[in-house]
């Protein structure tokens, strides 16, 4: 259990998908104008990462691995299968939420399709493969990674809401400033690099 908590904390803070690996930047920059929308997208990312990670783990180890079901190395199909899982999971999640919680669907709805092309999701799955996590570890990694991404987008949205009242040079306003803020936040996150939660806790 402690090991899983370590992975959760590590993937949420130390190896933050948004601010250490800079994944999912397109939607990160596009949807972080207000905290409210950022909150919706962040939740959706936690959701989808938490679900696709274990499924992709199963696909990778049961179908694609050399000692898997087909007995041959099928890893060259990894990209296609992973992205297909992500795309179909996003659609499925969308349908389920629409059916059971229309209010959540209304607040989350428009962000769900965006997530398919959020590279934090595919990147997360690919990292999971290269780190050789087992099943429960991959769940912890998925949830932690999603949570870290959620925190990061809330943080930048809050900063962007405030900075609107500052005297930024006109050409730098909006997008340009968002890039620079993200860069500075990333540098701050580098301070956490290399911390081993197992050694600290």
């Amino acid at each position, binding site marked *: 259990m402690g090991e899983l908590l370590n992975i959760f904390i590590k993937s949420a803070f130390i190896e933050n998908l948004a601010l250490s*690996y*800079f*994944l*999912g*930047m*397109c939607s990160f*920059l*596009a949807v972080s104008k207000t905290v409210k929308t950022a909150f919706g997208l962040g939740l959706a990312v936690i959701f989808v990462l938490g679900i696709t990670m274990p499924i992709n783990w199963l696909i990778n180890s049961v179908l694609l691995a050399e000692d898997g079901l087909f007995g041959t190395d099928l890893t*060259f199909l990894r*990209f*296609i299968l992973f*992205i*297909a899982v992500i*795309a*179909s999971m996003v*659609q499925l999640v969308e349908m389920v939420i629409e059916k059971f919680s229309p209010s959540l669907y209304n607040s989350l709805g428009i962000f769900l*399709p965006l997530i*398919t*092309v*959020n*590279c934090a*999701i*595919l*990147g997360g799955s*690919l*990292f999971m493969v*290269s780190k050789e996590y087992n099943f429960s570890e991959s769940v912890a990694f998925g949830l932690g990674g999603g949570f870290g991404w959620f925190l990061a987008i809330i943080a930048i949205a809050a900063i962007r809401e405030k900075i609107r009242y500052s005297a930024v*040079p*006109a*050409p*730098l*306003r*909006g*997008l*340009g*400033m*968002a*890039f*620079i803020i*993200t*860069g*500075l*936040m*990333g*540098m701050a996150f*580098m301070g956490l690099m290399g911390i081993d939660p197992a050694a600290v806790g």
Partner: protein
Amino acid sequence: MADTATVKEVKKSSLTFGKKEKALITDPLNDTNPITVQVLGICSALAVTTGVKNSLVMAVAVVFVCLFANTITSLLRKRIPKQVRMIVQLVIIATLVTVVELTLKAINFESYRQLSVFIGLIITNCIVMGRLEAFAMGNDPYRSALDGLGNGIGYGLILIAVAIPRELLGKGSLMDFKIIGNTSEFLVNTTEVSWLGWYANNNLMVLVPSAMIVIGILIWIHRAWNPKLVDVS
């Protein structure tokens, strides 16, 4: 077939190269640049721009994927069922990306080792997907190909524009060719000192966060030079 998400055919297919066709290629280089205006495909732009060489390889890969994904989608646009549109597009992109990956592994193993995961992330590079959805699904193959080419090149140009200051200031070289500063703080012999030998490499430029800042500054320059892009909100 009304249900194939066809926006509206621009013109009936003709293979002329007029003003409109030229704009398909030149617009993404400036007014509708994928990175600095549309903010698409940032992730891979950050990670691979530590060196000009890697950026060039990546740029070629993206141009290839953009061009063929657009053309193939456009050829199939009337046959793709709307319900599975997204998945079909992703499969087309993912196939092309895997083709690129396998080819790169065969012709330039060293670049393959350095770019590894980021080649895969072209799949989720939103420009490719965005162009398929916004253009290729509604236009003929010839124009879609031009559009894909334009966007791929527009993307590649910014990659290289970001990579040049990063490699020059971070490693003191361009295309691995030593230009300024010492080779390292552990200088072995004086022949390794090049132009501006007092310059010490700024390692910060090689780190990913500085790429964000370099892109931010590029956007600043771009918008100062092309004021109609300034964000008024």
